[in-house]
């Protein structure tokens, strides 16, 4: 099921690393229609698997991740493997270095299967706006979804019914959800790991800002980005976190404190917990299903003896607008380096440097990126800076203080929905533009990025349409252990069903057979 169990299988020799790698690569091929992967590094992966197998044979595995196939979002630098950010600007770009988190995975013996698809430069909430096309949610092809969509489910029309993964780390979420790998890296700036995790029925962890190195993560918003972890269960997320967290001298925004990896207890005393329900997250756009699910979850904690109280984060309604200003400003700045001179796409324009820059950037960036650059530059103009940028920073401080107050008053964990509803069909989703969708979809996840807090989305139940619904837990700064402990307890209670993927050749392999009970809330 996850790295821990597979690792045991590898150690015990029940399966070899090479065979495991082959099966995963085969699955990547078989699920190609999901468009979850941009690059698949078959040869490199096989070599890594061979090395791992040798180590297991010697009885000297590097650790729990040795030989475990993983995938990485295509906005992380990977030496020797194309890093495109799903943009024309970086098509064909082969980075000379590994992101710190990628290096850590490789140093642990993980087998890097490939780079996953995303919204261009991580801008979006659907994984629909990259140059390699949209990612399809594996649940679109699940028996659970098909059963509930009998009305138009003739095979010819099937193709138009598929639902989005959410974004922007949709490729990574889909890769984990469809069993092509055991864990994947995403990134989270406004919800980009938690959103697709919720839609794809996997665990999506956003760590505290400053805990995991961003060196090598191509930035969207430097002051909010974090590498995100996507796995099929909470324990696996904790394992990955333990291997990735810690100070990096190459990233001056990582904290100096030594990080102590932890194991999650199998049981906790829920009665000691105080769960906060922020009333401002009861937005009108919330689907009734999600509302009900949220209430049920609160009751679950209450019935187990936890203190469940309503709390207020009064500045929540301003976070989207505030995010819009700060995000676009940073985007305008971060994208300035893409001029075609040193790397990436260069337009065939020789009249002048300026004309070359202009053509390169027009050709290299999609409308979403260019729109944000224009907005951001506007907000950074001298005459606008105080009214927009500085104001937004002040509002950001207010938002962060909301959390400080609530957490300081005895609340351990906040419980909120992750998304407004289950995943939308692609044809519906694209009816609105990226900016509108992002503003809608980020509303429940965005504030945690503003405040730098850790948050995790855990699959909770299936919707009426047979699609995953997730719920979000937000914790104290650097208290990932408490956060994941509570998340694990919740995961155990809800027993979220395993995806029943059809239309995909299911290999007869024991490693995939670990099934949670099929009961749903």
């Amino acid at each position, binding site marked *: 099921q996850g790295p821990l169990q597979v690792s045991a299988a590898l150690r015990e020799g029940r399966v070899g690393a090479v065979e495991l790698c082959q099966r995963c690569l085969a699955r990547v091929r078989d699920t190609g229609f999901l468009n979850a992967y941009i690059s698949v590094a078959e040869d490199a992966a096989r070599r890594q698997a061979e090395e791992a197998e040798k180590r297991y044979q010697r009885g000297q595995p590097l650790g729990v991740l040795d030989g475990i196939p993983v995938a990485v979002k295509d906005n992380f630098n990977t030496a020797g493997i194309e890093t495109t950010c799903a943009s024309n600007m970086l098509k064909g770009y082969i980075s000379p270095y590994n992101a710190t988190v990628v290096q850590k995975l490789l140093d642990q013996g993980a087998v890097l299967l490939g780079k996953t698809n995303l919204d261009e430069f991580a801008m979006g909430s659907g994984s629909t706006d990259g140059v390699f096309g949209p990612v399809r949610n594996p649940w679109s092809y699940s028996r659970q979804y098909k059963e509930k969509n009998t009305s138009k489910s003739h095979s010819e029309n099937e193709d138009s019914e598929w639902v989005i993964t959410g974004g922007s780390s949709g490729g990574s979420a889909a890769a984990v959800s469809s069993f092509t790998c055991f864990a994947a890296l995403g990134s989270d700036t406004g919800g980009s790991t938690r959103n697709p995790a919720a839609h794809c029925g996997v665990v999506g962890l956003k760590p505290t800002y400053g805990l995991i190195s961003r060196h090598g993560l*191509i930035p969207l918003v430097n002051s909010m980005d974090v590498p995100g972890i996507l796995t099929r269960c909470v324990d696996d997320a904790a394992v990955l976190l333990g291997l990735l967290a810690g100070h990096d001298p190459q990233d001056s*925004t990582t904290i100096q404190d030594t990080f102590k990896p932890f194991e999650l207890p199998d049981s906790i005393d829920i009665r000691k917990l105080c769960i906060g329900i922020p009333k401002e997250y009861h937005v009108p756009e919330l689907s009734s299903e999600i509302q009900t699910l949220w209430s049920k979850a609160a009751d679950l904690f209450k019935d187990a003896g936890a203190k469940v109280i309503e709390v207020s984060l009064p500045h929540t309604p301003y976070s989207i607008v505030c995010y819009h200003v700060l995000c676009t*400003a940073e985007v305008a700045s971060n994208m300035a380096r893409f001029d075609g001179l040193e790397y990436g796409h260069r337009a065939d324009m020789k009249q002048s440097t300026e004309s070359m820059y202009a053509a390169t950037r027009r050709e290299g960036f999609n409308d979403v990126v260019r729109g944000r650059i224009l907005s951001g530059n506007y907000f950074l103009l001298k005459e606008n800076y105080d009214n927009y940028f500085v104001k937004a920073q002040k509002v950001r401080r207010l938002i962060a203080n909301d959390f400080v107050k609530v957490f300081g008053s005895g609340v351990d964990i906040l419980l909120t929905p992750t998304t407004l509803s289950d995943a939308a069909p692609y044809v519906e989703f694209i009816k609105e533009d990226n900016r509108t969708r992002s503003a809608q979809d980020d509303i429940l996840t965005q504030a945690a990025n503003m405040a730098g807090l850790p948050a995790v989305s855990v699959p909770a139940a299936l919707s009426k349409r047979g699609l995953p619904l997730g719920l979000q837990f937000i914790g104290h700064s650097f208290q990932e252990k408490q956060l994941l402990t509570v998340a694990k307890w919740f995961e155990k209670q809800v027993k979220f069903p395993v995806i029943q993927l059809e239309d995909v050749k299911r290999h007869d392999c024991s490693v995939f057979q670990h099934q949670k009970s099929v009961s749903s809330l």
Partner: protein
Amino acid sequence: LASWVAVVGLEIHAQISSNSKLFSGSQVQFAAPPNSLVSFFDASLPGTLPVLNRRCVEAAVMTGLALNCSINKKSLFDRKHYFYADLPAGYQITQQRVPIAVNGSLSYSLCIDNKMSQMVTKTVRIKQIQLEQDSGKSLHDDTRSQTLVDLNRAGVGLMEVVMEPDMCCGEEAAAAVRELQLILQTLGSSQAIMAEGQLRVDANVSVHHPGEPYGVRTEVKNINSVRFLAKAVDYEIQRQIEELENGGTILNETRAFDSKLGCTISMRDKEGKQDYRFMPEPNLPPLILYDAKTLPANMNHQQVVNIDWIRERLPDLPSVKRAKLVELYGILPEHSFTLLNEDGLAEYFENVIKHTQMKPKKVIGWILKDLLSYLKEHALSVKDSPVSSFLLADLLNLLERKEISSSAAKQVFEELWKGEGKTPLEIVKEKQLELLQDQEELEQICQAVMDRQEDEVGAWMLW
């Protein structure tokens, strides 16, 4: 004609003398093969992050202390955006909001009426010192319609020193910059050689009638030496006065100094004023500096920069060195200026003093008149002098012991200058320049002369 007052301020960029760049580990080296000193960060590869170089911070603190500044215990980094081929990231990391040092002063001296004997001390306020990145270099190849970009210099640490408009002419500006150069070289925070681009000076110049508000200022760039600085500033002052007296106006523009023509030329840009869209640098936390009072007890001193620790280790600044020379050796203040102005001359002088019995007040004459003029004539630096301080000391000893006359000494000096490896004593013997000490011998020579000139002697004795 109504009188005019000129107002001159300076923006000086000094390249920090350090092994590696301000935010990355690539090497700092002059004249290396193009693009051989470029790290991933310098090339702005996506995903790379800045890491602050401790040595650069120390250099800035040292410089700030030497210029009597307040060191900001918390300073911030910002991004300054503009597109140019030699700026790979599309922005420069600088300190626009809160720089590392503010509100200092620099004292410098000028000779009045070109007489070394009358020196006057002036002060210029230092507005601030900020840390920032240097850009790369672009070379425009017009024949092939291309621009060649060398990023070796991109990311090298700079200290921008801003001098308030307290100066009034080219001479003052030049003297202030010269003193700053000496200070930086003494501290070792920058080698400050203008010819190698380690010290770049932009002048802000305006003119007005006394009692009236300041005029519109222009910025003058492309000044490659201290001498050209004085020329450029004076030219620009003149140009502005003439322009205004002819009923024209001064534009707030940037002008380039043309050293061949000796004038400033407008660099009128196609677009209007640049908006640099300053934004805080999100990848660098605020720079926190400590002093003895604020340093936490258990803090590893390797991890922090302690202002007091740096202050205690500052070397003697030029002004202090000069005062010491004057006090120790009884030389004139203007002499001390010349000694410090020439690289290595003060050390040369002191070494001669050590090895000779001649009084410093006499030695200084040999140093400043004889040695220095020979060096200037042959365009040599002190360290390349064919006459070492030991040789000169030997020569001066011969003179002091009256073994030779002073005119003979000058002849010997000229011989020594040929650098043939002979000692002063050897030259004296070779050219028979010894002063005759023997009384009897002297009498014999005089007698012989008088014998040959009987008539003259006779006439003299009658008289």
